[in-house]
């Protein structure tokens, strides 16, 4: 009873003392609420992302075909998406393209309108992007194999997203339980196999995944450790497989690594390093160096997108590129294509 009385009295006193603070904040509160109401009324008809993605027995999931709609990105922006009859971004067919890009949400153009994505920015170059949010390199390799016959004489760009690919390559499921193909090391050998037998529409709960683990894992991959060695070993296996597909298809493969925005600034480095107990061997460029070495061994052209990107190319509340970032990537692809056409793009 005493505590109840004390709680009531102290709450009333606290609220009275807080009154000036509350009154000062009223304009901000009113503007915020009214702006959100107006935004809801003014925005076009949107669907959540999970309504434009469907199950696929080969790779786990893919965008739905013949889309011409808007979806909510993770930072509440509304983005327009168009897909072809098979569900891949854009209206041109793979056979009509000069450049084919395999990747995840970055290839999908997540977070910007379709017209502002790198696919659409260069009218002189026809780019076909084969990608969907959440893909890992295993899924992209499976798609590379699936489309191999249509890749003849094309420039094939493979985006490796350093945010999550190295980690997701080794996982059988996403944090929400969605099953995905992954790479599994063969017992006792430094070799790998691709596992797809578990892929079906039901959720996978056999392994728990912490959705907050991406930054700690990225930080770990920026150090020399057992985990990073394992991740890069799997990465090398997948890149080698991709190279074999492109050689047989008579296509030119180029690997492009997509950095996380925290790999582009000093305060980003400090943020990543803060996830490590021992940051002595932390090197934010280690993933690029490791993949560069892999590509050198396999005689594959490698281009780190870090050389074309800066922090301001990324959205503020979303790890993806903004429109400026897409312009820089379009410039990168244009340069690569020019070199390819001129016969200069060789390892």
């Amino acid at each position, binding site marked *: 009873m005493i*505590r*109840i009385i004390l709680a009531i009295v102290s709450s009333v006193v606290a609220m009275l003392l*807080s009154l000036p603070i509350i009154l000062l*904040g009223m304009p*901000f509160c009113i503007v915020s*609420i009214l702006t959100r109401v107006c935004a809801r009324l003014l925005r076009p008809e949107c669907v959540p992302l999970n309504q434009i993605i469907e199950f696929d027995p080969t790779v786990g999931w893919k965008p739905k075909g013949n889309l011409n709609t808007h979806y909510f990105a993770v930072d509440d922006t509304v983005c327009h998406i168009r897909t072809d009859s098979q569900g891949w971004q854009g209206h041109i067919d793979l056979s009509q393209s000069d450049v084919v890009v395999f990747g995840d949400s970055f290839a999908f153009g997540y977070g910007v309108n379709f017209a502002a994505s790198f696919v659409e920015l260069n009218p002189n170059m026809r780019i076909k992007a084969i990608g969907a949010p*959440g893909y890992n390199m295993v899924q992209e390799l499976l798609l590379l194999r699936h489309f191999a016959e249509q890749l003849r004489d094309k420039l094939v760009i493979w985006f490796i997203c350093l945010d999550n690919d190295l980690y997701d390559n080794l996982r059988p499921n996403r944090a929400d339980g969605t099953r995905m193909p992954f790479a599994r090391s063969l017992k006792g050998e430094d070799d790998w196999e691709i596992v797809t037998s578990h892929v079906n529409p039901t959720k996978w709960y056999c392994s728990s995944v912490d959705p907050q683990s*991406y*930054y700690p894992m990225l930080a770990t991959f920026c150090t020399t450790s057992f985990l990073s060695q394992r991740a890069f070993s799997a990465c090398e296996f997948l890149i080698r497989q991709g190279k074999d597909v492109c050689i047989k298809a008579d296509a030119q493969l180029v690997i492009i690594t997509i950095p996380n925005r925290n790999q582009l600034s000093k305060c980003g480095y400090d943020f990543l390093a803060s996830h490590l107990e021992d940051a002595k061997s932390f090197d934010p460029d280690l993933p690029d160096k490791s993949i560069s070495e892999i590509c050198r061994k396999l005689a594959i052209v490698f281009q780190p997108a870090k050389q074309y990107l800066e922090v301001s190319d990324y959205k503020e509340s979303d790890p993806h590129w903004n429109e400026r970032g897409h312009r820089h990537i379009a410039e990168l692809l244009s340069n690569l294509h020019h070199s390819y056409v001129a016969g200069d793009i060789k390892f």
Partner: protein
Amino acid sequence: MLRGYHIITFSLPSSVSAVWLRSFWLVISLSSGLLVGVLSALIFSPSWCALGIAVALGLALPGLLRPQIASIPYRAWNTLARTYTHYAYNGLLRIWFYIVFVAVGHSRASSLKLARLLTVESFWIPRGVQAVRLSHDSQHTTIEEALHRSWVPAFLAWATSTRNWWAYCLLPFFMLLVSLVPELEDNASLVDIYPLF
């Protein structure tokens, strides 16, 4: 709307789209028109309130047609709002600690052991209750995620189940504090952000 557990919000999304710029400009224009109209009606005569309508229309049209002009005012307003939430949060937290916490924490029976004693004096949650399935969309989530979505019912349920009735009095203050929790936007949260099919 921004996700999370903010019931009342003071700031706007940092990432700006044309929709948000137009909405913000519309609200500011209408608010300015209303203010001018009311002041004119009070100072001169009620018929002068039409001036407010003219001001609102004059301000709103350019922003609706070219939302980019609202970009700088939007960012300036948001910077002010975030500055306010930063200092307001710290101020309210001091009031909480020096008045409410001291009063409640120093009550006769208090040793801050607020949970009901179990026979084995353990606060561990049994493993089996960690997964909570949402029936309508078959999503797998944890108690933590459910709490983040709606902490008020969880708080009230705790207060009721542990008979800490005094905690009910603190709810308005908690709601105010939660509304002012600074949003962490320095590093875009890299979580598993795609809710797939």
